[in-house]
């Protein structure tokens, strides 16, 4: 229960920061994708299911405000990203920061390419390499840089929650 409430507020705070503060620090009109970092982190830190729930909620938030009247598209995208990251739960070690960065970078790349195909290619905007150069690569770089900073924070929150859960379990048993 504590975990659910914490995650709920974490996602809402990230969403608010991303739509407000980060817009002021955009580089060349590109902002980092914090919600994807959170989704991806919980995917490989906690497994497929938690990744999915975090992704679903993050995506729904985007849908409600910026989905243009259609709910579910971003929810589905983030849901899948959370699930895919869950596959790497087995090779995840908290001390190592290199792997999470690779996961986040790949997730962001996949997310961007899916967005491009669904939202641009289907409207016959073919210049993939221009979009790659101007949007996708800068976003990945910026997101990775931000991951370096907030990964420890997310890990810390998760560790606190896990410690708390273990204590509760010990008390219960």
């Amino acid at each position: 229960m504590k975990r659910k409430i914490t995650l709920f507020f974490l996602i809402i705070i990230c969403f608010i920061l991303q739509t407000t503060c980060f817009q002021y620090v955009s580089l060349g009109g590109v902002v980092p994708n914090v919600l994807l970092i959170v989704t991806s982190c919980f995917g490989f830190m906690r497994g497929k299911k938690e990744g999915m729930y975090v992704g679903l909620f993050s995506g729904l938030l985007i849908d409600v405000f910026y989905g243009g009247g259609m709910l579910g598209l971003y929810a589905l995208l983030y849901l899948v990203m959370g699930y895919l990251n869950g596959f790497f739960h087995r090779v995840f070690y908290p001390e190592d920061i290199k792997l999470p960065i690779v996961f986040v970078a790949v997730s962001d790349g996949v997310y961007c390419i899916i967005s491009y195909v669904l939202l641009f290619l289907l409207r016959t905007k073919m210049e993939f390499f221009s979009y790659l150069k101007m949007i996708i690569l800068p976003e990945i770089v910026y997101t990775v840089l931000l991951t370096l900073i907030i990964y420890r924070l997310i890990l810390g929150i998760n560790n606190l929650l896990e410690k708390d859960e273990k204590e509760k379990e010990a008390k219960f048993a």
Partner: protein
Amino acid sequence: MPRVRVKRQRVVLPSKYVLLILSVVCVLLMIVTYTTDFISAPLSYVSGYTIVPFQNGIMEVGSYLSTRADDLKQLREVMEHNEQLQNEVDQLKIENSNLIADKYELNELRELYQLDQKYSGYEKVGARVIGKDPGNWFSVFLIDKGEEDGICTDMNVMAGSGLVGIVTEVGPNWATVRSIIDDSSNVSAQVLSNSKHLVVTGDLLLMEKGQIRFSQLVDDDSEVVEGDQLVTSDISDKYLPGINIGYISSVEKDANNLTKSGTVTPVVDFARMDVVLVIKELKNKE
């Protein structure tokens, strides 16, 4: 501890089924919300009262900080240029008198086109920008006025004297605006000087340069040149006529040799937009 053991052994759904179920839910949600709005209406109501106040506050702090940072940067620049500028003052004074003459001419022209009258005739409401699209693909932003302030979808949005975009979604105390530089935006426009119609389309690849694309201009006699002003056209079904869009910055002949296309520099600075005006009049009154 038999009770605990029983609890541990409850059926756990494998995650691939959870994925399947949630995906189906998402797709169904997409279909349902695309065709009707009985789910999104209450959701937008709830979220409007939980998230919008925070965004309001943070945006205020953020814009305060970014103005302060800009101030510092500008101060340094201003000091460097100060001497240089002093020398230019005399020259500028002369230019100023020329500009005043130009201004009278401009006012005269505006009167001629009755642009001024048209603008002031519309009832407008000011709104603050409180959030921007979290992704990098579209240019959609959130304003702090909604249904309660009389805003509804398809209302035109201006900033200063130029067209910003159109309201696409409305909540109780918020609304989303799709700007004209957004990749999915299309505006029917006309050249002010000779009333030739064309379509202004946002383009993500040009967004960084602060430009938008125009196309479908029929202009056999090459009457339209760089610097011509574009306004929203009379035949648009969503945009009110005569709102300033921008100035043509380049014209090219299309491959079909019949139409022309090119780029437009919008009059609104989309990178720095804090306050917008929503025109509370709809083109299509049902």
